[in-house]
């Protein structure tokens, strides 16, 4: 559904002089600096997949999303989305995709959400009966019934995001781009949004491409992640393997009844307990070994927090 080859995006940003003298000077001599937002990105996403883009701020995730939806023209590289070149902004293409941005909305501010739905139904040229059916489905899934008649500006952030999702999906697009959809939402709303996206993906088969800062979003929704840092691809694969590869596997912590020895096989004493960091495959054997060697008072096997994994990944230079 989505094919990206060697995508590059470089911005030329004018350097502005400081103070009165500097701004006068910058009228005459334009100094520019180049900012590489996306460097040589390549990946491919199949129809119906749910993929998460992970990366620190300014990594190029939003830029990539905008290039995929046709809002931004790349400096070089190819991308094909739903069989189209996004930059042409063919109306047929625009009917097959949708973009939802957290903190920004397309809902008409002063009117109830149903007016935005009506407008979108007309703009996308949807068959009335079918559109009504989709609308009802979305209203039910997102529990929008009590909100339909209140002006958007009177809704809470979470309610607005749910309506935003409905407005964006009326035309049943094949690709759903989500840029930080849960940002600023309370926990309940976040959970509702996540649940909805998963449900919709299953029902409609839409491909979901999601960027987020919240690990919980990615963990709940995306079996596959693409990690982008400094504009470059750092990892593309299953989420669970990410921890494996970069988290140094799992952490086994054994608390002994008597004082713990300095070392014991793969274990090392840390803060009064025996700690071993091992790849998943070796955990069982190590636990077995520990149980046999010492009197174990407590045992725990921890996954490394994804945040640690990611900071390590982001810190790595390409």
């Amino acid at each position, binding site marked *: 559904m989505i094919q990206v080859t060697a995508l590059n995006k470089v*911005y030329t940003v004018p350097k502005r002089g400081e103070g009165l003298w500097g701004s006068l000077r910058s009228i005459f001599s334009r100094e520019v600096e180049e900012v590489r*937002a996306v460097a040589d990105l390549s990946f491919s996403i199949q129809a119906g997949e749910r993929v998460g883009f992970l990366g620190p701020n300014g990594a190029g995730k*939003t*830029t990539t999303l*905008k290039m995929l*939806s*046709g*809002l*931004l*023209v790349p400096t070089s590289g190819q991308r094909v989305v739903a069989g189209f070149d996004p*930059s042409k*902004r063919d*109306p*047929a293409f*625009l*009917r097959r*995709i*949708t*973009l939802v*941005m957290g903190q*920004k*909305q*397309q809902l*008409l501010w*002063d*009117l109830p959400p149903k*007016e*935005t739905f*009506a*407008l979108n*139904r*007309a*703009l*996308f*040229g949807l068959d009335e009966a079918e559109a009504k059916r989709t609308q009802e489905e979305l209203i039910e899934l997102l529990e929008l019934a009590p909100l339909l008649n209140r*002006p958007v500006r009177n809704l809470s952030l979470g309610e607005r995001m749910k309506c935003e999702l409905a407005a964006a999906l009326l035309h049943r697009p094949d690709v759903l781009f989500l840029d930080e959809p849960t940002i600023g939402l309370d926990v309940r709303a976040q959970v509702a949004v996540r649940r909805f996206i998963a449900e919709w993906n299953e029902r409609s088969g839409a491909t979901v491409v999601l960027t987020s800062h919240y690990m919980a979003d990615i963990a709940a929704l995306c079996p596959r992640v693409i990690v982008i840092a400094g504009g470059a691809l750092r990892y593309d694969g299953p989420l669970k393997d990410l921890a494996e590869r970069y988290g140094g596997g799992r952490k086994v912590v054994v608390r002994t009844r008597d004082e713990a020895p300095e070392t014991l096989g793969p274990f090392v004493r840390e803060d009064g307990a025996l700690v071993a960091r091992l790849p998943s495959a070796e955990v069982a054997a190590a636990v077995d070994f520990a149980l046999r060697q010492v009197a174990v008072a407590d045992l725990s096997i921890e996954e490394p927090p994804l945040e640690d994994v990611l900071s390590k990944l982001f810190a790595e230079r390409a």
Partner: protein
Amino acid sequence: MSLGVSILALMRASLLTTMRYRANFIGEAAMAVAWAAWTTAPLFVVFDQAPTLAGWTAEEALAVVGFFIIAQGVLEALVDPNLRAVVEHVRQGTFDFVLLKPIDAQLYVSLHRTEPLKLVHCLVGAGVVAYAARAVDAGAVELLSATLLMLAGLTLLHSLWTVVVSSAFFFVKVDNLSWLIRAGLDAGRWPVSLYRGVVRFVLTFVLPIGLVTTYPALALRGELKPSAGLGALGFAVIFAGLARIAWTQSLRRYSSASS
């Protein structure tokens, strides 16, 4: 067919939005009449001192003012609100949503925010024109050609505003620029033949308010040469084309520069 549906839906949405705020029809109508009064007053002061000016009598010049008032009404109702909305979109980063709709962005942006109540000014202006038309004995042909030229003039104004909006992608604080142009258009309340030299050239070809207000008035008098009239219509078409180019170019720039 679906284009028509889209346009109607856009206008409906913008109408509903305006109606949300308690629109005071009587207040607006009163304002329109008052505004027309002090737009025409200077004209009477001038013509009190000089019965004809560059071949124009007070009644004939009144037609110019009438067309000017109509143009102002159209600007306030249909053009300015859209301009302000686009500037706001670009500022808030929600312009992207406009680009994601399967409808031509220029069309969308020209229709999505209107203040229909301000059209009352157009009614008042039409009244002034009607009065002037009677005074100069305008017949059906004259009225028709005047209307045609007025429409061409309004197209010109719309194209001018499209160029201004296009610049919103480069300099975001474009609302000030629109004030500047409005002030320049103020010169249009007088027949353009009253100006001389550079100013007259500018007001006819660069900031073509002369075409919007003076030419229809000349047509009303039956004094517009067909060649000039056709020239004006042609100019409106060309200018619309140029505006379209300016728009697509700046969209291109927007889609390579926004982050």
